[in-house]
């Protein structure tokens, strides 16, 4: 910006007796705050007096710019440091919403946790509104198992709040090592359920009950925390359809964005996920990406916790799965009801009986084993039609008995594959829609499942001589159904298998074959494959982005 000076400024020639070293040593003394040394240097070099004001001024400027003494360490958040009435001692954690410090109230000597809104003065108005809303809601609550807020404020645009300090890890960290002892897990969830019920009776929904929001102190006492998503009954309803929360612990109504349906039973669902993870050691649903998990939450039925941890008694399985029901009306009506159930189990070792209707059970079975379930439904339906046909025309029995046998065999194979896939070491095999390319073991399993279908269908078609009839529509159907796995490679494989099987069928079938009809079917198969693969590609985009 400025041209270099033509000449050094005037001062140096007029002060030949003041070496730069002296000026430097004076500045060093000034920077260290060593007043004795400053005085001594000044006494030895009176000419220095004219320079001190400027150096002191620059020192003031340095302090004004850095805001700290000479030995400022590089990590921008060096601790401890003073913040208002608090002394910040250590960072406890950070999340999307902000940073939490362990702090001590200097005059009271009390230890608290101080949370700052991320983004400081640059946080958006929405973030600030949410932060303050959380603080206000939490300030309304006094409960021995809920982290309460003491103070909050805005310091030059930086929002902060001070709350109870819970000295320990959160439950999620604890469970990374594996499931808890059963009685302990039940006790913990019962206490948290009481706390959640207290929230509900105060007109507050937590909406984000999950293991990482449950803090445990040194003695293992749990505390519910983090009202970041909570909503009071007087609160605004502006969050229309926004998906908020953590996919793995989100209730289906939250995952689907059906905001109006969210009520106390959504928090009961959250408690169910906590109970599940505490008992089983793993969350009920854990997809490779957030979208996978959301789809699972909406469509799949979790395996019982005892599947992951054989120590879990069956009655607790039922309590847990009941909380995780898709329909809120089938969950325990209140958190208190869940707490009652759990406490009854602790006291008496039993759970109050709870009846379930047959359609519910069938629905749950289908959601738990969709691959085998829907195959059996299809196969069973076909068998019923064939059986009816036999009843209507008894003379055809001889022709249809092998068909019925074939269908039954196919059904058995489907169940066999399912059993193979859900064995404990391979629980993830069944999971539809893994976003990663299937690893070999899983891929082999899925491929075997689908090739079984293609072969079974082809054999049955050969048996009934259906090479040119409407039964051939089963091939495009298979291709379309394979798309449910959301794996383009699987669609390609099934398409190829169907085309091959169809060609073989055409060749081995006795009698004249209408080639043009066969080719039309091939084109239909290819079109179905193209459409299915295209749809998968579309869904893949957000899946990849949402990871």
């Amino acid at each position, binding site marked *: 910006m400025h041209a270099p000076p033509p000449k050094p400024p005037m001062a140096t020639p007029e002060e030949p007796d003041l070496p730069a070293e002296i*000026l430097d040593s004076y500045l*060093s003394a000034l920077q260290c705050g060593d007043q004795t040394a400053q005085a001594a240097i000044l006494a030895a070099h009176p000419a220095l007096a004219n320079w001190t004001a400027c150096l002191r001024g620059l020192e003031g400027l340095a*302090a004004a710019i850095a*805001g700290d003494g000479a030995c400022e360490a590089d990590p921008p958040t060096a601790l401890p440091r003073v913040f*208002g009435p608090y002394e910040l001692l250590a960072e406890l954690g950070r999340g999307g919403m902000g*940073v939490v410090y362990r702090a001590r109230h200097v005059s009271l000597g009390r230890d608290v946790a101080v949370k700052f809104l991320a983004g400081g003065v640059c946080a958006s108005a929405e973030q600030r509104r949410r932060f303050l809303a959380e603080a206000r809601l939490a300030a309304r609550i006094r409960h021995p198992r809920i982290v309460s807020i003491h103070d909050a404020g805005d310091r030059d645009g*930086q929002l902060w709040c001070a709350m109870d300090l819970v000295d320990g890890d959160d439950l999620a960290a604890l469970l990374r090592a594996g499931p808890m002892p059963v009685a302990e897990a039940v006790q913990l969830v019962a206490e948290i359920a009481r706390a959640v019920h207290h929230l509900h009776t105060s007109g507050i929904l937590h909406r984000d009950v999950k293991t990482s929001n449950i803090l445990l102190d040194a003695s293992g006492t749990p505390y519910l925390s983090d009202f970041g998503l909570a909503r009071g009954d007087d609160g605004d309803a502006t969050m229309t359809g926004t998906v908020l929360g953590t996919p793995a612990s989100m209730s289906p109504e939250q995952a689907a964005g059906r905001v109006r349906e969210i009520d106390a039973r959504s928090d009961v669902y959250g408690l169910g996920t906590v109970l599940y993870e505490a008992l089983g050691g793993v969350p009920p649903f854990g997809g490779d990406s957030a979208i996978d998990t959301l789809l699972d939450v909406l469509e799949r039925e979790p395996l019982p916790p005892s599947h992951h941890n054989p120590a879990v008694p069956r009655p607790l399985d039922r309590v847990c799965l009941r909380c995780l029901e898709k329909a809120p009306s089938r969950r325990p009506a209140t958190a208190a009801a869940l707490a009652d159930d759990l406490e009854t189990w602790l006291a008496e070792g039993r759970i109050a009986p709870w009846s379930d209707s047959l359609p519910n059970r069938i629905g749950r079975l289908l959601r738990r084993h969709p691959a085998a379930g829907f195959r059996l439904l299809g196969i069973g339906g076909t068998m019923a039609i064939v059986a009816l046909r036999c009843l209507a025309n008894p003379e055809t029995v001889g022709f249809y008995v092998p068909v019925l046998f074939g269908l039954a065999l196919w059904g058995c194979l489907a169940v066999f594959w399912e059993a193979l896939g859900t064995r404990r070491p391979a629980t993830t095999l069944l999971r539809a829609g893994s976003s990663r390319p299937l690893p070999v073991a899983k891929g082999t399993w899925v491929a075997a499942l689908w090739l079984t279908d293609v072969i079974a269908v082809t054999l049955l078609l050969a048996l009934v001589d259906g090479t040119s009839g409407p039964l051939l529509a089963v091939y495009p159907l298979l291709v379309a159904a394979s798309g449910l796995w959301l794996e383009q490679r699987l669609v390609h494989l099934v398409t190829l298998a169907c085309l091959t099987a169809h060609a073989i069928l055409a060749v081995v079938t006795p009698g004249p074959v209408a080639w043009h009809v066969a080719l039309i079917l091939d084109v239909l198969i290819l079109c179905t494959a193209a459409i299915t693969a295209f749809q998968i590609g579309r869904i893949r985009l957000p899946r990849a982005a949402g990871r």
Partner: protein
Amino acid sequence: MARDSDTDAPPESSASTDGRGVRIAGWLEAARRGDAAARDRLFDACRSYVDLAARYHLQRRLQAKVDASDIVQQSLLEAHRGFDRFAGESPGEWFAWLKRIVVHNAYDEAKRYRGTAKRDAGREVPLDGRGDASEARAFDPASAEPSPSQHAVRWEEEVRLAAALEHLPEDHRDIILLRNLERLPFEEVAKRMGRSAGACRMLWMRAIAGLREHLGEPNPEA
């Protein structure tokens, strides 16, 4: 620390503040009442401070000389936009607020510059206001800090210094930034500037002398 010792000394140079007509406290108050002209004057006066703070914080993070003009612009813009949100009253609070914005932007810029956005948690930086500590002391009525009017004088002094630094030749300003503001020893300054330590010392002395001249201090030996 430095400030404490500073305040013990007689305010040797405060008499010169009225010379440039800088009145931070008055403008701040008027601007907070909605006086647009006062607000413009306030931002005008603080520009050099923001510029210097931006340079300082960016340079300290990157350990190299870089162009800070982007984050100066950005910070001034944010301060302008967020002015209504500024809740403080005293110049001390005002400068702490400005600084926090600058530090935040410098942090982001440094991250971008290095191209290593490892953690996205950089947003906590505004907390960096280690200013918090010293500023908190400054506003404590119980402490033996100078009176509010003395404060105002001191801030005007700092604003005046920052402005004077801006008028220095580039190498003079750089060396004052490194030695006086970053408080680096000359061995380190020499490494950064690519000169010998002795040459740096001489350059520094000339820079200070030049600064004194700009500040209109009485000639030495006068």
